[in-house]
């Protein structure tokens, strides 16, 4: 039973560039949530995708966008990168929406220089 997978593991980008992070949910799950975890902080909710649509969004600017594919995998895109976007980006999958237990992936470490 494959868990949540994310790629790439690490990424280094320059200010102003764009980045795409990828997530495959746990087998059987259809909902993907994305979180940003800055150093020394807890994860912060970015948005959630279900049925290929963004269901809810946290307090993040429009530079952060996403997509969910028919196979339930998801991408997180960040445009016009800022130094403050450096963080661990976590993907979590669940079955359905709402409060259901979320399973987290290992994360993608993004460094913006």
């Amino acid at each position, binding site marked *: 039973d494959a868990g949540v997978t994310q790629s790439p593991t690490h990424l280094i980008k320059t200010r102003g560039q764009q980045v795409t992070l990828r997530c495959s949910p746990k087998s059987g799950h259809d909902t993907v949530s994305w979180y940003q975890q800055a150093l020394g902080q*807890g994860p*912060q909710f970015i948005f959630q995708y279900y049925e290929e649509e963004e269901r809810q969004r946290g307090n993040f600017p429009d530079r952060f966008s996403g997509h969910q594919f028919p196979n339930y995998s998801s991408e997180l895109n960040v445009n016009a990168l800022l130094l403050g976007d450096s963080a661990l980006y*976590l993907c979590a999958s669940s079955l359905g929406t709402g409060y259901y237990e979320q399973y987290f992936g290992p994360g993608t470490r993004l460094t913006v220089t």
Partner: protein
Amino acid sequence: AQSVSQHNHHVILSEAASLELGCNYSYGGTVNLFWYVQYPGQHLQLLLKYFSGDPLVKGIKGFEAEFIKSKFSFNLRKPSVQWSDTAEYFCAVNPSGDDKIIFGKGTRLHILP
């Protein structure tokens, strides 16, 4: 604004000591509550959860947590810690009907052998 407060940022204990990590949240409605753990080099894992019913919930590895609604608290406990409990612990809240999980900043637990 909805938030989660974890009172201790860094806790150091000796093996066999008892553990209690505090967690309070600010939200007036019905909530679902979680404790997640992140062992060194590993991804976030669910330790235990409370959705409804008995306010004393038991999780994996001997951990338990008590939901006290009047105090908006969900403290994590373990009677006797082991060296392998060294990890970072996150309290999290999901407002009922909401899609996001709100995390605290985490407590780094270090167990001395």
